[in-house]
């Protein structure tokens, strides 16, 4: 029991420690593919360091929501981390405290508070970005739900640790249409939730066009650092759900020894690196969608996830 709690904390440290690296590798690799040099992969760490050492300015007009939000945004991905398999393929101490649905609700809570905080300052760009984020959010929500329902149909459970074992039970389960459709729908969802290119431009700093970035526009100093770090952790957590729960549990530690868990760290990093390649290909080969085309993009994700659900109910081939 003590050991699984310790492993859970290793998972938390993994997410806290490597989320900025993930963002750094992603942006560096993207710049390289687009034949530019790009910042160092450790740049996000330096940014965070710099922001933590700066003074924080908070408008007198704001309420407690504005002050609490950075901490929520930072902490909530950690809650989700303790529910999902990041390093081990057997359930850890907190695994049965909540299922994937709870994880989705947690992330939605962070989104809700950051939208409120953006409105709180009265800056015209904040509410604009907040309303756009909400638009993406409420279009993404049904996809989340349907994906989880499909998973629960297939695996008879929504506990991530149980779900991940179902896909590799047989080659038929892994290649079943339900699984493939589910993966594509969730990939589209990650792009939308992480503010990646077909939906939002993560590198853009033009206030009128930004969606995801604009939520943290009014923050400075420590608040800005926490918002940034929290956003990076959220993206790493979503990636871990995609790679470890929905794709398959390869690379996760199977043994109970501390050495096995530590060995899983580089393996999972390699897995994430392969996903970075996929993301860079997507981000470099597509153009950003116009705002009102986003509903079509997420609508397509919704259709695909529902198709996955009917495929898993009717054909029953995934069992």
């Amino acid at each position, binding site marked *: 029991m003590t050991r699984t709690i310790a492993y859970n904390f290793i998972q938390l440290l993994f997410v806290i420690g490597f989320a900025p690296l993930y963002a750094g590798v992603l942006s560096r690799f993207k710049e390289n593919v687009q034949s530019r040099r790009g910042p160092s992969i450790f740049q996000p760490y330096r940014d965070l360091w710099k922001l933590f050492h700066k003074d924080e300015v908070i408008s007198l007009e704001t309420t407690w929501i504005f002050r609490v939000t950075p901490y929520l945004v930072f902490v909530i991905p950690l809650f989700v981390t303790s529910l999902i398999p990041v390093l081990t393929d057997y359930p850890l101490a907190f695994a049965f405290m909540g299922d994937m649905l709870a994880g989705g609700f947690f992330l939605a809570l962070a989104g809700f508070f950051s939208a409120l905080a953006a409105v709180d300052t009265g800056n015209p760009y904040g509410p604009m970005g907040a309303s756009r984020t909400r638009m993406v959010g409420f279009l993404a929500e049904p996809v989340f739900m349907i994906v989880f329902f499909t998973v629960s149909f297939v695996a008879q459970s929504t506990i991530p640790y149980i779900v991940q074992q179902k896909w590799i039970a047989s080659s038929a389960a892994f290649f079943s*249409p339900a699984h493939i459709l589910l993966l594509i729908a969730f990939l589209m969802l990650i792009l939308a939730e992480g503010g990646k290119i077909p939906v939002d431009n993560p590198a853009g700093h033009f206030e009128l066009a930004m969606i995801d970035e604009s939520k943290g526009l009014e923050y400075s100093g420590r608040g800005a650092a926490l918002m940034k770090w929290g956003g990076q952790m959220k993206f790493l957590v979503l990636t871990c759900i995609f790679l470890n729960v929905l794709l398959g549990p390869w690379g996760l530690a199977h043994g109970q020894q501390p050495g096995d868990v530590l060995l899983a760290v580089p393996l999972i990093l390699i897995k994430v690196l392969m996903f970075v390649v996929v993301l860079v290909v997507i981000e470099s080969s597509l153009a950003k969608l116009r705002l009102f085309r986003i509903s079509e993009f997420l609508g*397509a994700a919704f259709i695909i996830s529902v198709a996955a659900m*009917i*495929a898993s109910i009717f*054909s029953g081939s995934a069992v």
Partner: protein
Amino acid sequence: MNGAQIPLAEGLNALMAGLILISAFGMVATRQVQGVMRFFILQSAFLAISAFLIGYSRSSIHLWALGAITIAAKVIAIPWVLKRTLPGDLYERREIDQVLNIPASLLLALLLAIAAEFLVGPLVAASTDPVVRVNLPIGLAGILIGAYSLIARREALPQLVGILAMENGAFFAGIALAPDLPLIAELAVAIDVVLIAVVIGVLTRDIKRVIGTTQAAGMTELREGPQPWH
């Protein structure tokens, strides 16, 4: 059903089924003629791979030949024929005007896919063959979605692709039900399909030359003499 005993080939066939369904949705969701055409080529390629896989798992030489015919006819010949016969601007840029907008079309396509699953439900329940269980509903969904895009599109070329997508769906269901279909029948169908593409391509080009548009909605009235939209 014991999943562990299904060979890998049939698992991969199920993967192709998922991809075929996605490319059918893609054909409905795309605005540009080029994009519709690309999804069609992709779908045909997945279809050919599926034919190879089933041919491998059932050791049927017919299906191998069928896959080869599919690649020759639908992945290579039809796009090439259409590219040759149609004027470039028709093929490349035009945004398609649809009866319904894209999200509504996608929802309808989804309903059609659900209906397909319902309709073949009793048939599938009677069969224990995993390939039939996968191919039959998705083949029927392909037929229905193809028929829908035939109705909803207003441009000649996407309508043609709708017909061809219906053929793809029928083919996908067919290779599961009748793996030993005489080769001559499939050969005839393949040549037929290419001929349809040639005829529609040439027809469309001439319509475009005479009338100046290929929108089906603009061709409801027959007139002689100078056209009002010239």
